């Protein structure tokens, strides 16, 4: 009897003792399907950063990280399936890299208490943390992107866009339509004429759109595209001899994939970005040493420094910093998704910290708060050099026009709150 009781007591103690599990970071990736060329480098960058942390630092706060990769094929249904099949494994934060999947996951993550990070995509008004408690879209969103592009055009035109013709060439989807409201508001403020030109999925045939652009001769074309739409648009712009320096894309239309097929004719094409470009950062030396040379790279190791690899790496870094912050706030290395959310909401990224991470000037310094899950909304303009086959920044990181964007965020999030009977407030 005594032995039985002793065994039961030992069992109870073992069950109560904290088991130090891995920190689980799901990666809802797409390595197959029509958007694989964009999904692969992002997924590789995301995975390689966590591999680096494990190999170099023993994980985060001494706890190894574990990447759970699930293939979505950029398909919303599969993305939701991935979420459902991985959330029970202690998933700390989801980054689905798809606006469609994001919209489906917002109510689910809120109910499940798991944070969702949609960096540069997703539902823009999720920047209002008083309504979207579990959704974060720092450091920039679609509307910031539109405003940053307009700011760049203002700068190029001596601060005056009155009478200028600007065309928005956009993917005819929820994603592509995101900047319309912002650009319309900005057109009222700055006096330019806005023409909207949608392109249906997948965007392989754009003759009509570019004939329209050729006829109407806009001064600038802004692009919100993804996948093959980007490559075809750059090629068609070159075909009609549209000045490439007047053609500017959002960050999802600004990868090497988008310009390489057009060859030299893509020279001068621009894109706005919320992080730095290239591989001239100390962190990449560590990636090479601890990840690629060790044979543990997620891909072939040939994507390092490309726009989308850098974005994946940056997303992983922000997740890791938020996890470390959560550990600090809650005084435990073994954090839960709820603690991770707290870590994200109190995240502060400083340039000093970026330097320590081997990423000086890679991204903005910012502080997240309950009121602002969207970060600073800053960005810079990158330009493609076809001969060097590389992007380079042609502007400093600057702020977007929050006087126009914030009221839009407030209005949209208030409508969402009313629709879903959410009482605004901070946790």
């Amino acid at each position, binding site marked *: 009897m005594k032995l039985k009781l002793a065994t039961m007591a030992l069992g109870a103690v073992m069950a109560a003792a904290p088991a130090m599990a891995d920190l689980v970071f799901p990666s809802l990736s797409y*390595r*197959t*399907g*029509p*958007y*694989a*060329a964009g999904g*692969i480098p992002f997924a590789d960058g995301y995975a390689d950063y966590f591999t680096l942390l494990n190999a170099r630092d023993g994980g985060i706060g001494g706890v190894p990280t574990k990447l759970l990769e699930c293939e979505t094929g950029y398909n919303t249904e599969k993305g939701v399936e991935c979420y459902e099949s991985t959330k029970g494994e202690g998933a700390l934060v989801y980054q689905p890299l798809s606006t469609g999947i994001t919209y489906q996951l917002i109510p689910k993550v809120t109910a499940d208490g798991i944070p969702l990070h949609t960096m540069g995509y997703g539902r823009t008004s999720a920047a209002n943390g008083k309504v979207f408690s579990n959704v974060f879209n720092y450091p920039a969103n679609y509307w910031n992107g539109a405003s940053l592009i307009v700011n760049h055009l203002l700068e190029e035109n001596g601060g005056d866009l009155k009478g200028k013709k600007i065309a928005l060439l956009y993917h*005819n989807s929820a994603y592509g339509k995101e900047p319309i409201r912002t650009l319309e508001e900005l057109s009222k403020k700055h006096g330019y004429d806005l023409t*909207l*030109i*949608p*392109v*249906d*999925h*997948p965007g*392989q*045939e754009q*003759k*009509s*759109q570019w*004939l*329209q652009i*050729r*006829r109407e001769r806009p001064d600038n074309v802004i692009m919100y595209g993804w*996948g*093959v739409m980007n*490559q*075809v648009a750059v*090629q068609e712009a*070159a*075909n*009609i*001899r549209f000045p490439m320096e007047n053609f500017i894309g959002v960050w999802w239309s600004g990868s090497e*994939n988008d310009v*390489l*097929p057009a*060859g030299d*004719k893509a020279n001068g094409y621009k894109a706005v970005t919320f992080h730095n470009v290239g591989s001239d950062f100390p962190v990449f030396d560590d990636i090479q040493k601890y990840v690629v040379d060790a*044979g543990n790279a997620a891909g*072939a190791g040939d994507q390092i420094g490309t726009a989308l690899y850098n974005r994946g790496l940056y997303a992983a870094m922000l997740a890791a910093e938020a996890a470390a912050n959560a550990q600090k706030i809650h005084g435990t290395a073994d954090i839960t998704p709820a603690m991770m959310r707290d870590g994200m909401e109190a995240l502060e990224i400083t340039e000093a910290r970026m330097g320590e991470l081997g990423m000086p000037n890679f991204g903005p310094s910012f502080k997240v708060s309950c009121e602002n899950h969207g970060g600073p909304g800053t960005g810079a303009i990158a330009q493609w050099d076809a001969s060097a086959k590389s992007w380079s920044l042609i502007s400093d990181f600057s702020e977007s026009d929050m006087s126009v964007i914030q009221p839009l965020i407030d209005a949209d999030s208030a409508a969402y709150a009313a629709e879903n009977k959410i009482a605004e407030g901070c946790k």
Partner: protein
Amino acid sequence: MPEQLIFAMEVFLNGLMAGVLYALVALGFVLIYKASGIFNYAQGVMALFAALTLVGIMEGQVPFSHLINAALGTDIHHFGWHVPGFVAILLTMGVMVILAWLVQKVVFRHLVGQEPIILFMATIGLAYFLEGFGDLMWGSEIKTMNVGLPQGMNLAIDEVTYGIFGYGFFIDNLDIVATVIAALLVVALVIFAQYTKQGRAMRAVADDHQAALSVGISLNFIWVMVWSVAGFVALVAGIMWGTKSGVQFSLSLIALKALPVLMLGGFTSIPGAIVGGLIIGVGEKLFEFAIGPMVGGATENWFAYVLALIFLVFRPQGLFGEKIIERV
């Protein structure tokens, strides 16, 4: 002449050119359907696979390099040579013939006499297999197709039309090349079908494969031959579309552009594919030009199907399809 009419003429010409590109994809469907009654869902993926193979051979890429490197711990990606375009096209054609033989040997030989829906399902499986196989073999990054085809605005047409209308028409040089190649392809296919022994055998199989078998025609040979020719057509389509957008996995989606062409032109007619392509190309472009701005644009994808459906209502077999006769 009113400005809008001049613009409409430019749109009309570009619609014709776009229609030729759609027809190039549709031709592959027609060939296989005509000879074997199979609606080949994998035709778009075949274009992708052919284009991937062509670029891979041209750039001296090691096939299955990721797999080899993962298994053997090596780091090889390229042979270090570049193959001229013409030679690479011939080698790719060889690969497509091998693929045709394998498809026949491994899949369709075992499905002879099955319901059309079973054969269709088999081609769906084939499409997904080929997509994954192409990815494994050549990688999924976007590749540049450069076989020396001209691209960009045709300056002569621009100048001539500017002289006449005071507005230079835009016609893409690549579209002009595609039109010439498509015309040659159709002529070659018609001559092949009408005047060669194999072509006549193909038509005999298409009419009644049991009767053809009874007079000594090898069904296996004919079907391998038809799949090979469809592979060649897929290669041509892959080159044209790949030059426009780079070779990438969304290339397989060009099949979506061929479906309304087939509905309109008929599944069994080679000229029907061309005429259907032209009607769809012109129809969708003119509709987008005239009506698009009133309804928010992006009408082309759905309008092509509406146009095809309208034709279907009046001619279910398509414009040039074989007339459906039901005897009681």
